[in-house]
Every structure is written in structure tokens, then in C-alpha cells.
């Protein structure tokens, strides 16, 4: 079953076409790595999925057209730069978004534990490190236990230990049946994903399992596979 399906998805910003008729399918309960260099259209694709970007063509999320109001509580979105209030404490941030999402205070406090920010609850976000700030943003996305998580470069600037922890958490969420789409411009992140979407200049080069990608390109890493795919496409 697919959680996200795109058919001939076109996105224009002003006069520039960013995504050129994408076909894509993301399976339910998997971690899919959206991999591509910066400027390839990763963020645009993610914004379209969460419903804040106009598009042409078909894009359905959980069997509903993207952007539909009833989808909003079911999708968690982490933007590239942490979209949280710097002049509020960690707890104030989480509690505010929890109230908007209709999530109980108890559940909100649990989310803070999940991202290991206990002990930092009463600190202003602006006094946190970049990685901690990113986790506050991630915590907000986890509120309400959404079925689909769209994570735009969630591990940038994190130390390796924390990065491992987060990926372990992503794995747990996928095991619970959640669908995760995780973007990265760092190829080694892709090694942790079951499924890979390779994107370059608004076109999809690959949308299948990582294993298949490596077999097809006879590469040992996704990075090498990417290079091989570009070579094949050119």
C-alpha cells in the first residue's frame, strides 16, 4: 500500500518550473530517503506533500488529495531550519503547538522525553544549540502521533551519536506503521533508508528499494549509485 502517490506532479514557482511531472510512490510503513543535491527540488516536493505548495497533476497522501484540511492532523512536518519560537522555552513551544493540534499536556510532555530534551524544558530555544533546536522542531512534528512524517534534513548539524539515536527512533516509528520521508543531501544518510528516491533538477532518477538500486548500478554506496544513475540518464 502506498502512503503517498504522485502522478505527473508539476510545481511552478513564478515562471520557473521546479518539479517536472514527477511520478512517485512511497510505501506505507517505510523510511524513504529523498536524496539529491541542494536545489534539486526536495524541499518543494515536501512542501507540496504537506499541502502548502500549489501544484498541478495528482498528488495523494493517505488516499486523499494533498492539501486537504482533514490531512493536516495526520502529517507531521519538520522544516529545514527549525520552525519554532526562539523567544519561548522548550516547554512553552511544545505546549503551544500541542494545544493547536489538540494534544494533551501529558502527551506533549512525553514528546519532549522522546527527543531527549528533558532537563532543557525551561530553557529558551534561542539559548539551545543547533541540534537541540532541531529536536524541538522534530518534537512538534511528533505531536498527535501523525501517520506520515515529512522530515526535511532533520539530522543536519547533529553529532553522530544523536544522529544514530534519531535514526533508531525513525526505525521504531516505521515499525509502528508510520511512513517517513526523510530528505538529505548527504549520501551516507541514504544508507539507513529502506527505500530511496533520487531526485535531480526536478526529476526523479530512482524510486525503489536501496537494495535494488545498489544491484542495478553495481555500486556499493548510494553515492556511487547516484553518480552511476546520472551517467545513465545523461
Amino acid at each position, binding site marked *: 500500500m502506498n502512503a503517498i502517490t504522485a502522478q505527473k506532479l508539476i510545481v511552478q514557482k513564478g515562471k520557473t518550473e521546479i518539479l517536472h511531472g514527477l511520478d512517485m510512490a512511497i510505501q506505507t510503513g517505510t523510511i524513504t530517503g529523498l536524496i539529491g543535491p541542494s536545489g534539486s527540488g526536495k524541499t518543494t516536493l515536501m512542501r507540496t506533500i504537506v499541502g*502548502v505548495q500549489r501544484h498541478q497533476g495528482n498528488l495523494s497522501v493517505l488516499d486523499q488529495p494533498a492539501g486537504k484540511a482533514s490531512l493536516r492532523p495526520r*502529517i507531521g512536518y519538520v522544516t529545514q531550519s527549525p520552525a519554532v519560537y526562539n523567544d519561548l522555552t522548550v516547554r512553552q513551544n511544545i505546549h503551544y503547538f500541542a494545544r493547536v493540534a489538540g494534544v494533551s499536556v501529558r502527551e506533549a510532555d512525553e514528546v519532549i522525553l522522546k527527543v531527549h530534551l528533558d532537563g532543557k524544558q525551561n530553557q529558551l530555544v534561542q539559548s539551545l544549540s543547533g541540534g537541540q533546536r532541531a529536536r524541538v522542531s522534530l518534537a512538534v512534528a511528533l505531536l498527535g502521533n501523525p501517520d506520515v512524517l515529512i522530515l526535511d534534513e532533520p539530522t543536519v548539524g547533529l553529532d553522530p551519536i544523536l544522529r544514530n539515536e534519531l535514526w533508531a527512533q525513525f526505525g521504531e516509528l516505521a515499525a509502528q506503521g508510520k511512513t517517513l520521508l526523510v530528505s538529505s543531501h548527504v549520501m551516507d544518510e541514504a544508507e539507513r533508508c529502506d527505500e530511496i528516491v533520487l531526485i535531480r533538477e526536478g526529476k526523479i532518477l530512482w524510486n525503489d528499494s536501496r537494495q535494488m538500486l545498489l544491484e542495478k548500478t553495481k555500486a556499493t554506496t548510494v553515492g556511487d549509485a547516484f553518480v552511476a544513475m546520472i551517467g545513465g540518464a545523461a
Partner: protein
Amino acid sequence: MYHLRATTATAGRILQQLSHDKRTIALMFLAPTVLMSLLAWVFSNNDRMFNAIAPALLGVFQFVIMFLITSITTLRERTGGTLERLMTMRISKADIIIGYALAFGVFGIIQSVITSSVAIYWLGMDVAGPQWFVIMVAIADTLLGVALGLLASAFARTEFQAVQFMPAFIFPQLIVCGLFVPLSQLPDALNTAAYWLPLTYAVDALNGVVTNADITGDMWRDIWVVVCFILASLAFASLTLRRRS
């Protein structure tokens, strides 16, 4: 009702943000009072003159300060990515705008009461009409500043631009609103224009209370017009929020 919850949560969140910013709070509450005191000092040998212009200026000071604070704070939300995040959640555009209006409205009302009280009881500002009417119009002026500030933030990309809106949109209103030259003495075109601008009514109401012992029909009309401008600006401001770009 998730609308009510989202609106009150937003208002509460903005008050929390401001409560972490002591300097802004101090500026918001003290600046108009300091300006009124300065005005009283300038006219310390001319009580009549002070009483004639102080009420109108009281309204204008509050209006300008709230306009600035509101437009810049709202712009921060628009540019900081949090607005986009909210747009992916179950909250309506009106919830956000009303949340802002409520939060700044609370501050505006406190500010109005402080400034009016200081002007009336400490600086001896004396008006022919009832003093509660001065406070009420001051509150309306403050809310007008809030509403126009919310609207203005939609048309600014940066905080720098938002500040420029003061000379561009607020100063012209100051010049033609009847503060410097009575409306009846303005050239026809400016006189007509003045009646399309909200500050004209705000100042007219305060000038009315200076000379009239009783509240006239015109003064009530002024209040209603200001209230309509507030509501229209808020409605328009929520339309300028875009869920999708």
C-alpha cells in the same frame, strides 16, 4: 471547538513571547507616557494649548507605537517559518489573526489606561467632556494600530520594510487627519481623502471631547467608523495569510 482553542492558545503564546522581552514591554508602556509628559512640559506655560492638543496626540502616540510593534512581531512569524508550520496544522487563518489581535489588544488596553490616567490625573489634562470617553477612544486608537499593523506586515518582506511603512502610510494620515489644520480648512481633495482615512475619525473623536461637555452624535459616529476600520483590517489581514504559495 478547535477554533476557540487555537485562538486562545495563539494569544497566550504571544503574551508569553512578550513576557520574555522585558525591554519591549517597558517601551510599550512607558514611551507614550514619557511623550505626554514631555508635551506637558513644553506647554507648561500654556495649559489651554496643552488641553487642546494633548488628547489627540495621546491617541496618535498609542496608535503609532502599537502599529510598529504589531507589524514587526507579526512579520517575524511570517518570515521565521512558524507561520508555515501553523499552516500545515489544524488552525484557521482567522484564528491566528484574532489570536494576535487579542494578545496585542490586551497590551494596548493596559497601555491606554496607563497613558490616559497619567495624562488626566498627573499631568492635569483637562477636557470638557467625560474622561472615560478619552480612555475609550485611546483604546480604540490602540486597537486600530494593532489591526493596521497586522495588515501592514503582509506587505513587507523584511523588518526593515515594515519600519518604512511608518513614513509611507502613517505619516500622511498624521498630516491630513485634522491634527495640524482643521479638516474644514483643508483643500477639497485632501478634505475628501481625509474622510477615507481611519486616523481622521480617531483624532476627531478626541478633539470632540476637548470642547463638548456631552458626547455628540458625531463623536459616536467617529468611534463606530474606527471600529469598522479595525474589523475590516483584521478581516483583510487574515485574507493576506496564504496557506499555499
